[in-house]
Every structure is written in C-alpha cells, then in structure tokens.
C-alpha cells in the first residue's frame, strides 16, 4: 500500500495540475484504487507514478477512469426494483411528464433497467431519463446500450426477481458476444457529463437515483450532494440510493419520508 502522505500528495497535485478535486473522497477506498492502478500499470515507486500523472495528461485521464469505480449491473438489488415497480411508478404515472435523473450512472446498466420498467408500466413515452457521470468514457458505453452477452443470464435472473414478466431477451439483439439493447429504450435517455463534487443542479426531477456513488465520498461531500439532490427534487419526488447508503447523516429527516426499510425517500416538505 502507498503511504497516507503519498496519497495526499497525489490529491494535491491532481487538483493543482488538473483542477479535479478528490479531497473529499473516502480515503480507504481511494487508497485501494490508487494502489490498484499503480500496480496494474507496473509502477514500482510512487514518485514515478506521480510524475507520470503530473506530466502526461492522457495518463492522468486513464488514472481517473481507473480510480472511479465503474462496477454496475442491470437490476442490481432486484428487491429495490420490485419496490420501484410496485410502489413508485404508479405514483409517478399520474404526472403528465416524468423527469428522472440517474446520477453516477456509470456504463448505464441501471438506466436501461429503469427504461425497461417504465416501458412495462406504459410510462416510457412520457418519461425522460437524464443520465450523468463524471467519467466521459463510461458515458460513451452507456449511450450505445451495448453490454457483454455473457452477463445476460444473470441480468435476466435479476429482471425476473425484480418482478419482470416479459421475455428479457426481447429487449436486446445478441450478436458476436454482445447484447445491443433496443433503440426505443435509449430514445428517452439524455447522457451528459456531470461532476457531483463541483457542478450544480440543472433541472427539477420527479425521481433521482444515485446508487452506490455516495459510498466513495466522505461525510462533508455526502452532505453537499444530498443538498444538491434536495434542490433538484420536486416536492413529492423520490430519492433512491444504494442499499447500504443513507441520508440520515446528511440532511434533516423531517423533510423526507422513508419507504419502509427501503433506501428510497420521498420529499414531503
């Protein structure tokens, strides 16, 4: 493992040279990620790695892509999607137009999951999903809607566990090891780069999903982001986080009502 002081030097230099601020990222995870990319790329000494990051912008970009975690899956935590299908979508369906924001969408698997559910609820035609991530590379993948075919068995099981009744394979075309999801789903998605650390609110939404992103932030940054979501959420809108994330350390709970034990909160004030 690299030393604490080395990690702080890297954070400082990245901010100084590129303006990107990792200073409010959770250190335990960040340290592991930096360590991982260093070894992946064959650096033995930290100072060599640091000077490569400083003076090679392309390498800096690679490092950021590798540090930011991009692990995701379709219908991750099927029980969560089941609740959204049964309890949230019927409420959203009463609106003439539904705006959703998927913050930190990574390669888009959960965005396509949501689009599938909206379609099955008969709501996709009047919905728009804004899907953002800090990482431009993953957004390119998300836009294409192309995922590895070998994942489809697991995803179709997740889909069934999430209450899906259709033939999951009808949503994509399989070819040469890839699954290309139907364009009809992507038509209702808008992808753009957005940095939760420094960017501001850009619209008002009926539902904001940000799943397993806040775990990488320290408590101060979590507060900032939860407030950003609060500003961006319509009254009676829903905020959905990852299954082990909570808003309770970040915002006064009187403004929000939690759905049972789910990590879904409704803005009531």
């Amino acid at each position, binding site marked *: *493992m690299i030393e604490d002081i080395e990690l702080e030097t890297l954070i400082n230099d990245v901010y100084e040279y590129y303006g990107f601020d990792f200073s409010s990222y*959770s*250190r*335990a*995870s960040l*340290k*592991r*990620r930096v360590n991982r990319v260093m070894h992946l790329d064959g650096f033995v000494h930290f100072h060599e790695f640091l000077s490569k990051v400083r003076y090679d912008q392309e390498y800096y970009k690679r490092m950021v892509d590798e540090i930011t*975690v991009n*692990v995701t899956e379709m219908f991750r*935590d*099927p*029980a969560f999607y089941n609740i959204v299908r049964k309890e949230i979508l019927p409420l959203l369906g009463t609106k003439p137009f539904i705006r959703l924001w998927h913050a930190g969408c990574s390669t888009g698997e959960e965005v396509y999951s949501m689009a599938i559910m909206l379609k099955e609820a008969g709501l996709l035609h009047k919905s728009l999903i804004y899907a953002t991530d800090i990482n431009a590379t993953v957004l390119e993948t998300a836009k294409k809607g192309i995922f590895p075919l070998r994942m489809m068995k697991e995803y179709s099981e997740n889909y069934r*566990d999430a209450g899906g009744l259709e033939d999951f394979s009808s949503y994509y075309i399989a070819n040469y090891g890839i699954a290309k999801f139907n364009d009809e789903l992507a038509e209702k998605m808008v992808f753009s780069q957005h940095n939760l650390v420094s960017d501001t609110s850009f619209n008002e939404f009926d539902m904001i999903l940000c799943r*397993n992103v*806040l*775990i*990488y932030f*320290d*408590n101060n940054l*979590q507060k900032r982001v939860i407030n950003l979501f609060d500003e961006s959420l319509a009254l009676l809108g829903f905020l959905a986080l*990852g*299954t*082990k*994330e*909570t808003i309770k*350390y970040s915002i006064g709970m009187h403004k929000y009502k939690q759905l049972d034990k789910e990590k879904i909160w409704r803005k009531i004030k």
Partner: protein
Amino acid sequence: MEENKVTISNCKVLIIGGSAGSLNALMQILPDLHNINGFAIVIVLHRKSTDDQTLEELIVLKSNIEVKTVEDKAPLLAGYIYVAPSNYHLLFEKNETLSLDISEKINYSRPSIDVSFESAAEIYGNSLVGILLSGSNTDGTYGLKAIKAAGGKIAVQNPLSADMPFMPNNAILNADPDFILTNEEILTFISEINT
C-alpha cells in the same frame, strides 16, 4: 495448550473472516459468548450476492451481543458485532467509521476477507486481532499477513475442527499465525481479550 494462552490487552477490533463452513463454527461460538470487553467484532463471510439479510438475521438470532447493521459511514463502536453486507467490500476509515466499496471482486469474492483485513490493519495496527475460519479458497491469508505486519495478532481455526480445512491450512502454511484454535478455544480466546 500453553502456547495458546492469551495475553491480548489493547484490542479495539476483532475481525473474523470465513467462507464455506465458517457459519457452522460461528453458530457454535456466538451463543456462548456473553460479553466482549471494550472491542468491536466485525464478521466478514463469503456468501451469495443475493443473500442480503439472512446471514445477519441468523447472527442476531444466535448472538447475545447486539448486532449493529452496517451502513456506509456508520461509526464502529466497542461492544457490538458488525456483519459485512453482501456484495460490498467493507473498509475502515481513520475516524473509526465503516465505509463500503463495490469495486471488483477479489479472490472471486465481495466482500473479500483480504480487503477488509488489510484495511482494518491499516487503521487499527497493533490493536487489531484477526481470526480466519473454515473455507475452501485462499482469501484471508494475505489479509492475516497484513494484520501481523501491522503489529496485530492473528489466529486460525484448527483445520481439524473446520468443515473446510483448505482456507485455515493455507493460512497456517503462509501467514505464520500466533494461535491455532479449535472452536471451543476460539470462544475462550475471544472471552479473554482485554481481561
């Protein structure tokens, strides 16, 4: 066993890792554990990614010590048991909170025992004790070495009393454990920490 006599007095965290067969061991140990003296127990077990709550519920059922649900940035407090949630790596922060990470599986596992052991070793150093239980892969050995290198004490379940001896055997061969303990000895070992 004279060499297994416990002299651990500054423990803040006891971290227990295990895979196949380890739940059996825990179910024998936990019901008879009535008191822990000034440290927290963190349990990291391999399990199916879809098993969200059942392991924790089982431990709550069998344990006399209160189990606190792990949420991101929850404070790690002495006197409680914490169970690593499925499908996340469990990490430790300097301000003695827990944090989570969904990055790649390590040793085909998330949670990975190595990841949690190594992270705990960084934060708790010589006030950490690690125990590795039954299992049939190599996860945990590297983590035990990290704990030992940081000044902590490490114990391994006696392979003869483990359902799956591969994991403890691998640790014995490669991590030079301070203690090798049967289930009954593990119970005594934990009860005598900080006494």
